[in-house]
């Protein structure tokens, strides 16, 4: 792209060193939110089968606790993790160092201040009650300001790239960096500052929530899969020439699919219909993603089992296809008739931000943290505990939300069933979900301990035996745009 600087193409170690502290700060604060949000989420879920739990404290009534937990996990963990991982990946793929990282600390401070005030505001009773837009009004500006600084870094790093090619991961990261501030400010204006009238509000809210998952978390996860899969398998993405088609088709379909959350709602019928059509159009990119990801893994299943990052990555790929499947199913009116308003419809977003995005970030973290810090993981038992509890927790929660939700929907649609009977039936499923959330929380604690060990500069014990496994050489490295 820029021949003048191509001679000064940065070395990987140099890039990693420049990204070390920003990544550590973002990932560290994200992990604290992951633990805090997970604890809040666990408490909120306990309230579903034990309603007296924390009920007398106004700050922790279920209606405040559940959105507070969701916001802590999405804006606290999800965004911090996406910043950490996205900035590092952007720098690597652009073959340039992450410059003036000090400003990113300022941005991290403001972002986390905003999230803290937002969660506190929800618990204290300043919630707007719009899904994922609950935070008090003033927090919006704080988050947008902090984001502006981070987004500019990502885009600047992209534009001073030293590479000829733009790799698939960069399309997704670049797109996500632009889409989030746009959808967030539109939602801020149309829901909170100049609220639209009547049912326009649910339309805007559905559009925002769908795009937040489909145009922020999923692109970030796809960027990770496109980068790590060839890197760890030592072979290029198969059918890579189809990837641009999948990219455009996926993002355009997703941008129009928000209405699919409003099937049967009191809105003009073209809005949910457009959503259904857009979601059904996802079938083509799903096939291409399948060719890209599974095509690359075919014949290398041994490698997948042998590498921890690859095992997480395979779980993330499975989560991604589950999310696509749920998106398609929930936009079919006959399926939505049963599944909407149940635990099953909540599973769609959970598979996007957790089973896909979070799991891919874990895969990436096991790849980049040893390289950034020049150390090995201290405790392999904790690593094993983390992977085991992630797999177990994901399976339990998918079963709990899908099974419970399907039964709940069937009972809701059968008028003779009394509401108290539905509640009684569901409490068993809620209990299962509490176990699942608890298992995930244990895994996150294990990861946090290992993270503190590897990121702490004082503890240099690991440095003695640096033996970072060299990733297998990539046959088409230059062509695929890998640095």
């Amino acid at each position, binding site marked *: 792209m820029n021949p003048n600087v191509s001679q000064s193409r940065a070395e990987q170690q140099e890039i990693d060193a420049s990204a070390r502290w920003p990544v550590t700060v973002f990932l560290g604060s994200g992990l604290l939110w992951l633990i805090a949000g997970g604890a809040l989420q666990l408490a909120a879920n306990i*309230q*579903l*089968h034990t*309603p007296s739990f924390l*009920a*007398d*404290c106004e700050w922790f*009534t*279920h*209606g*405040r606790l559940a*959105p507070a937990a969701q916001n802590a996990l999405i804006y606290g963990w999800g965004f911090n993790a996406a910043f950490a991982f996205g900035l590092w990946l952007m720098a690597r793929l652009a073959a340039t160092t992450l410059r003036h990282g000090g400003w990113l600390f300022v941005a991290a401070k403001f972002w986390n201040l905003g999230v803290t005030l937002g969660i506190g505001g929800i618990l204290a*009773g300043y*919630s*707007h*009650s719009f899904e994922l837009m609950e935070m008090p009004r003033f927090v919006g500006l704080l988050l947008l300001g902090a984001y502006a600084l981070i987004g500019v870094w990502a885009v600047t790093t*992209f534009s001073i790239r030293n590479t*000829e*090619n*733009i790799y698939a991961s960069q*399309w997704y990261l*670049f*797109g996500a960096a632009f*889409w989030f501030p746009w*959808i967030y400010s*539109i939602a801020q204006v*149309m829901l909170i500052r100049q609220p*639209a*009238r*009547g*049912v*326009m*509000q*649910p*339309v805007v809210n559905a*559009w925002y929530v769908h*795009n937040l998952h489909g*145009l922020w978390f999923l692109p970030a996860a796809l960027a990770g899969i496109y980068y790590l899969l060839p890197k760890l398998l030592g072979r290029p993405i198969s059918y890579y020439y189809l990837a*641009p088609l999948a*990219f*455009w088709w996926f993002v*355009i379909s997703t*941008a*129009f699919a928000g209405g699919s*959350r409003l099937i*049967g*709602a*009191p*809105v*003009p019928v073209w809005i949910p219909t457009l959503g259904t059509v857009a979601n059904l159009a996802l079938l083509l990119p799903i096939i291409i993603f399948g060719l890209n990801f599974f095509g690359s893994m075919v014949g290398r299943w041994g490698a997948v089992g042998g590498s921890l990052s690859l095992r997480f990555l395979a779980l993330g790929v499975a989560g991604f296809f589950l999310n696509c499947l749920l998106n398609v199913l929930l936009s079919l009116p006959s399926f939505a*008739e049963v599944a909407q*308003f149940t635990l099953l*419809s909540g599973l769609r977003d959970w598979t996007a931000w957790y089973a896909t995005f979070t799991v891919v970030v874990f895969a990436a973290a096991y790849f980049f943290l040893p390289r950034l810090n020049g150390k090995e993981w201290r405790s392999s038992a904790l690593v094993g505990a983390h992977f085991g509890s992630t797999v177990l927790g994901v399976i339990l929660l998918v079963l709990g939300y899908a099974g419970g939700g399907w039964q709940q929907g069937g009972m*809701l*649609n*059968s*008028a003779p069933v009394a509401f*108290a009977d539905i*509640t009684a039936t569901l*409490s068993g499923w809620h209990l299962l979900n509490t176990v699942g959330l608890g298992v995930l929380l244990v895994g996150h604690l294990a990861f946090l301990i290992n993270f503190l060990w590897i990121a702490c500069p004082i503890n240099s014990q690991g440095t003695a035996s640096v033996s970072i496994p060299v990733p297998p050489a990539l046959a088409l490295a230059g062509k695929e745009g890998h640095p």
Partner: protein
Amino acid sequence: MNNGLLLFLGVFATVAASWAGLLLGAHKQIGALPQHRDQIDQSLNPAPLTGIADQGRLVYQDLGCVTCHTQQVRYAGFGADLERKWGERGSFARDYIREKTVLIGSSRLGPDLRNVAARPYASAEFFHSMLYAPESVAPGTNMPAHRFLYSVRPLAGNQSSYKALKLSGRHAPPDGFEIVPTPRAEALVAYLMSLKDTYNYPDEQELNAPAPAKEGGH
């Protein structure tokens, strides 16, 4: 795909098209729905919320009731909302123009509330009991008690307030005490008591007809 400018323009156009097509399009269609003037009694429908009910809407927002309750009745033939007597008809877009914040919700861990004031048992007394001690009026519910919306105060020899909750058994206050709603509880109940869409708009009535039988449907 190695042209950064094209990538940028495409990324830009994607959300611009979705925003203009979906949101601005919908806004043009329903963003300015007017009230309907009844031809016979010249009333304007839906009637605006009363002042205290509008305050109650804010309490509904701050307590996050929308986490478990929807406020939308699905039309006949789609789900069993009408069979469950959650409304006499499916909800229309026009029903919602009276509220400054529209929370149609997306989870039904609790029942739909759009027409909760039109139910046979609906009364301020019922809603206060439901909020203070859900089990006292809805056995088997998992709705959390909202005791913090009420104050328990000593009678000190005075007559009991006319607002005091009439609870019996294990939910009753100790002797010599009474439970009275705070202003927030009264506002919230006023809002709940305002939730009924009973007016049938002639323009939308045809939408209310049962959906044509689906081929191969059940």
